[in-house]
């Protein structure tokens, strides 16, 4: 053990007492008995037992291994190829994302109200359940709803459309067999819904996720819709908000990597005024922009809905058009538009393009 005492995950008061007693390295501590440690360092017996337990029996064996063992990039490549991604049923978006929403990373979806963020999230919750023989992941989904915008009827419609799509594709016996099990009821039963009313509930839920995931190892997608809502109203201390969000982001990426699942977060937009001009930017501040691994911005351009990949470690930036239909999130079809600019019958105000 080469850990120095100040770097151990213990309470600061305990660490100060240990350092004052002269313990510098973890190897000084490891051979001690609790009573001995208690006397020498002047800490209570419970604290002494806690310290020794932390040193000896790794409560987090996975993290301990990750810190000391490295993975070569070649092994990482094989791992990534086996993880796959979740399709969105919009081929343009799938191409831009490199196959779909990647598993093992956090993706953030930002957009103005009504542009389709919740629709995309619900579509992903259905798509993750498509069986492996059809090219999906065959996993379950956890949907954390903070805004109250989750509608079961809409998910049922999307599920029906997905089942119909798979029925058309089914060719061999394996696929036909999987198709018999794929029903709207089954899809809905594999979707776990949690309703959080404020940020404390959200933080608690994320804290409890490791236990939930060890009970349900087939979960492949976690959606938090939206992460902005509980943190935007009623929060006085902005620096505390930034700290909490950063901590949350790290916990989520840890879950995504350890349990091989995709985490999708929805964010809202806010206006930034600079040099007399106003621009729509994602909410929650500058430092939140670093939190997610990938960032997708959905925006309006007149009557069209566009999706732009703004930040990604492996894909180039690109913009594509999509549309929301009865069946869900789909590619935009090129229909000839007869509407002239004066006949703008959309109730949505024109938004500025994002530069």
């Amino acid at each position, binding site marked *: 053990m080469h850990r120095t005492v100040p770097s151990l995950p213990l309470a600061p008061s305990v660490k100060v007492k240990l350092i004052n007693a002269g313990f510098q390295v973890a190897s000084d501590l490891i051979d001690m008995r609790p009573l001995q440690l208690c006397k020498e360092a002047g800490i209570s017996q419970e604290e002494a037992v806690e310290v020794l337990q932390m040193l000896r029996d790794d409560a987090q064996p996975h993290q301990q291994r*990750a810190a000391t*063992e490295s993975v070569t*990039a070649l092994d990482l490549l094989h791992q990534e190829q086996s993880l796959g991604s979740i399709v969105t049923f919009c081929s343009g978006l799938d191409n831009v994302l490199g196959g779909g929403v990647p598993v093992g990373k956090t993706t953030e979806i930002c957009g103005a109200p009504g542009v389709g963020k919740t629709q995309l999230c619900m579509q992903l919750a259905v798509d993750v359940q498509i069986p492996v023989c059809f090219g999906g992941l065959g996993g379950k989904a956890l949907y954390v709803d903070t805004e109250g915008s989750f509608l079961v009827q809409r998910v049922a419609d999307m599920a029906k459309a997905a089942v119909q799509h798979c029925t058309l594709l089914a060719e061999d016996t394996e696929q036909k067999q999987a198709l018999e099990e794929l029903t709207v009821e089954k899809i809905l039963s594999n979707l776990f819904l949690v309703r959080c009313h404020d940020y404390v509930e959200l933080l608690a839920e994320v804290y409890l996720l490791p236990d939930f995931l060890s009970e349900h190892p087939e979960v492949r997608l976690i959606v938090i819709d939206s992460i902005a809502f509980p943190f935007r109203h009623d929060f006085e201390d902005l620096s505390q908000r*930034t*700290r909490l969000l950063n901590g949350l982001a790290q916990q989520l990426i840890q879950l995504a990597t350890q349990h091989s699942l995709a985490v999708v977060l929805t964010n809202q937009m806010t206006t930034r005024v600079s040099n007399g001009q106003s621009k729509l930017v994602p909410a929650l501040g500058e430092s939140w*922009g*670093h939190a997610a691994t990938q960032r997708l911005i959905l925006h309006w351009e007149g009557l069209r809905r566009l999706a732009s990949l703004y930040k990604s470690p492996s894909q180039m930036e690109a913009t594509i058009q999509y549309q929301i239909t009865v069946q869900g999130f789909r590619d935009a079809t090129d229909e000839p538009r007869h509407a002239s600019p004066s006949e703008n019958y959309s109730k949505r105000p024109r938004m500025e393009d994002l530069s």
Partner: protein
Amino acid sequence: MVILREGICPGINEDFIKALQSEDIRTVEDFVSCNPEELAKKCSLSYKALVAVRRVLLAQCTAFPVSGADLYEELLSSTAILSTGSPSLDKLLDSGLYTGEITELIGSPGSGKTQVCFSVAVNMSHQLKQTVFYIDTRGGVCANRLLQMLQTRTPNMEEQMEALQKIKVFRVFDVFSLLACLQNLRSNGLQKASVGGGSVKALMVDSVSAVLSSMLGGKQNEGMSLLMQVAGEMKMIAKDFNIAVLVTNHVTKDGNGHLKAGLGQSWSHVPRTRVLLQRVENAETPSLRTATLTKSSRQACHLVEEFDLCHWSEERSASISGKRKLESSKP
């Protein structure tokens, strides 16, 4: 403070330590700051033994001064300059990353910090044939992208696989795991790697702000200490093993609206060189970036170079640089 234990020097045994502990002397500091005559009387230990042990302990634990000339010789023989693979970036960094130093990349989200780290790692593993350690705290490592970069450099599959094997990735997501990882590297990881055949010359940490920013501020009193421990570990690794350390950090705005590095004043003194990456507004290609030198002990600051993330090894013909007249006065 080193605890007094049997065996740290000949002459110290169990009874010796027990006798000292009865006088409340537990550490080496307490021992050497006491008067041996008084101690001999109080603890009923022999004066000669006490003086002998004291001399040995002082010799073991003292720091010795090194002359400047020796230091300079050592520096000349051990420092290496590692090229990043991009001529514009090399120009900015005074021909590349220096071993024994920490270099920092800062930028807003999407400005290309992770891409630059990837490009540097790929250059080192493929061109310079060195092992690279990459500590990833944000899950941003994408081996597919590394492979893509290698494929543009060489069509040979074997070379690509070999280069990929030289990049070793650690994935840690909180500051205690990061410290565990760094301390493990310092004590045996790096020696193992250099014994195994390849030499390690570079360590990248992407990003250091992701794990530290949630610990700083508010009523938390441990954040600063952890920040300094991380800085200390990285500096020791850089100096003791002659490694170039590259870290990434986020940006915040200061009072005048200018961009500055995150993590505050204390962290800003830790890296030796700092480069700010920014997107180019209204550029023809979306992969253009500008790099500005904001802290350097070798070149005049505010030099700006433009480079393209997609064409890493090409030199940009139109490079903008501010304060050119300062360059001519450089020795």
